[in-house]
């Protein structure tokens, strides 16, 4: 199935690959972890902004009037499901099964896309009701925080599709395994951020 021609990058020096095997590449994974930690700081600042401004409604609508918790619960479920299906993709990758890996990745991407669709529907609904980001400090902070998370999910899906093409074309070579492991961290990290979002923004915002 895979050709013997190696993709660009695979011709890199092999000395560390043999030492660390496919799960090593410590430099990349540690570096990506550090990136995620810096991303975590971005979200911390946005959460802090929301924490400060979240009750400044400027006589506009409050979270209790706007949020539909059933939609949020559905979205949370979708993201949680996408986390476990990505985990299954990683397990199939470990067994070197290209088709099964791609199948689980596709399911993960579908859950992610459904999450995004529902979030965009929610945003459109809010804006239609006049709850635009310009309406109040609360809504500015809300759209910035939740929108940034949605943007991360969007880029996660773009990355996922890119990697599916890569895996389809080159197979589960060491480079692709390393990339899938980075995306795995990214995807699970987004789910962790979402825990903060649904608790801090939606659930606490829905209470008076």
């Amino acid at each position: 199935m895979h050709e013997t021609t190696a993709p660009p990058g695979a011709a890199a020096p092999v000395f560390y690959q043999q030492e660390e095997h496919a799960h090593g590449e410590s430099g990349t994974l540690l570096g990506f972890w550090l990136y995620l930690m810096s991303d975590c700081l971005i979200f911390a600042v946005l959460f802090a902004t929301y924490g400060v401004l979240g009750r400044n409604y400027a006589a506009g609508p409050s979270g209790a009037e706007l949020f539909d918790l059933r939609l949020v619960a559905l979205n949370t479920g979708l993201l949680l499901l996408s986390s476990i299906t990505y985990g299954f993709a990683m397990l199939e990758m470990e067994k070197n099964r290209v088709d099964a890996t791609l199948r689980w990745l596709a399911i993960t991407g579908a859950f992610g896309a459904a999450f995004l669709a529902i979030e965009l529907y929610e945003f459109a609904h809010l804006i239609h009701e006049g709850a635009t980001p310009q309406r109040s400090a609360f809504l500015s902070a809300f759209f910035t925080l939740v929108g940034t998370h949605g943007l991360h999910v969007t880029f996660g899906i773009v990355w996922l599709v890119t990697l599916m093409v890569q895996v389809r074309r080159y197979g589960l070579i060491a480079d692709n395994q390393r990339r899938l492991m980075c995306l795995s961290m990214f995807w699970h990290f987004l789910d962790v951020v979402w825990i903060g979002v649904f608790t801090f923004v939606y659930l606490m915002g829905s209470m008076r």
Partner: protein
Amino acid sequence: MSATAEAGIARKVQDDGHDDGHGDGHGDGAGQGGHHSPGAHGSVRSYVTGFVLSVVLTAIPFWLVMGDVLGDTLKTSIVIMAFAAVQIVVHMIYFLHMNTKSEGGWTFMALVFTLTLVVITLVGSIWVMYHLDRNMMPMTPHEALHRP
């Protein structure tokens, strides 16, 4: 690619060992020789365990808020924040395979440092701004809308 195949076999053996072994299920520790990375994967059992725990830890806060079970905003807030904290730890362990030994402890060090900064940012901002807010002139929503 023979190195990859060998590694796969080696890991499979290890994973089987884990399943027979201890009950916590996530694939860290023992046979990994200390260079277990945060992206390394667990077993089906560890993912399912994490998923079930997450569903329970998500469902309870939603139920508490949607059903207004406790009847007290402050009490409910504290309880759901505690659930969120526990769920974040569950995700870290079962999905991100966080442990104190991966990459020679550097991932954990980076995490602790980041969490320190996150706590300072959140608590500091909310505390300082809350106190500044108390020095503002009291204003009704109507006045806020029509202020000069």
